[in-house]
């Protein structure tokens, strides 16, 4: 099957995720988040869960999948100030905001988009993500303040050619850089 998404589109999708992650996955604006492209991380760690959210259009669906380890640092970071809530509940809200931010960026190119509600699955399900026949799959290792570790997977399934534009602000930044030369 021919590529339904160009390299440019892939890069813009990756940027949309990274931008959304930087905006929404940190609790405090002073927190530092690092986002690294990662090798395939489809190993199943017992006791872990994955959280799925789908953004759908008429021609594609984008699954954003977060791996949530029951790690004390992760719980302490996202559950603080929310007594009585589980890590999964607290993180589902954060993940929802992250996907909302991706949604807003993709809506620049695709005005007709909608998001599902988050759902939790056993992490062993992640091993079968290729069975969704994605046209684009990327994984990230995220680290907040070098203590809180997360993994995320973007899985794009298209039924027609799909392109994603860069954010207008990025284009402006880019043209600004050019002017310096």
């Amino acid at each position: 099957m021919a590529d339904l998404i160009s390299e440019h589109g892939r890069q813009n999708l990756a940027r949309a995720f990274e931008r959304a992650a930087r905006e929404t996955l940190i609790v405090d604006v002073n927190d530092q988040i690092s986002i690294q492209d990662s090798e395939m991380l489809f190993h199943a760690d017992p006791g872990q869960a994955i959280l799925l959210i789908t953004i759908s259009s008429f021609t594609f669906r984008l699954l954003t999948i977060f791996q949530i380890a029951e790690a004390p640092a992760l719980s302490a970071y996202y559950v603080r100030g929310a007594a009585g809530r589980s890590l999964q509940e607290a993180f589902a809200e954060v993940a929802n905001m992250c996907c909302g931010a991706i949604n807003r960026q993709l809506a620049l190119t695709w005005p007709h988009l909608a998001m599902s509600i988050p759902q939790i699955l056993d992490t062993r399900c992640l091993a079968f993500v290729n069975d969704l026949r994605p046209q684009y799959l990327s994984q990230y290792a995220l680290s907040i303040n070098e203590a809180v570790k997360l993994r995320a997977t973007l899985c794009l399934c298209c039924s027609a050619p799909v392109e994603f534009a860069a954010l207008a602000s990025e284009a402006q930044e880019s043209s600004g850089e050019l002017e310096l030369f």
Partner: protein
Amino acid sequence: MSTSARAMAATLSDGSGAERRESLSSQIDALSRELAHLRTLAHAFERWHQDMIALTEHSHNINVAGDDLTDLARNLIIVSLNAAIEAARAGSATHGFVVVAGETKNLSRRVQELTGEINKHLHKSLLLTTATFQDIQAGGKLMMAAVSGLEAMSKKLREGLD
């Protein structure tokens, strides 16, 4: 151009002003009725939503049962190993029991392999089901938003005509 749009265009170009208005008005009424019908799609989405929730929960329960079965098979192997060790200790008089213990161990291993395979299928099934569920859920919102957009346009057309 759709049939109704062509009909509307033909009426507008051929008829008198009053006829045009009347025709346009009836076309808008027809459009509003169709949109009202389309809005009942929400009931179908709700039905699918409830069914998919039940299906996802069902898959989850099967997964839990699969994990229990895997644990059972693992314990069965340990028991059969212990039985084989005990039979060997007891000496040649228990040769028959050694054979039975060995076969039990082999069968337990086979059960473990099979439950492992079944669990893989279950996890794959759960991912595919959930991804489909989420796509349907989001797709439903998309369609309802499209219907709302068309209703707003229809309302504006009606206001423009009145």
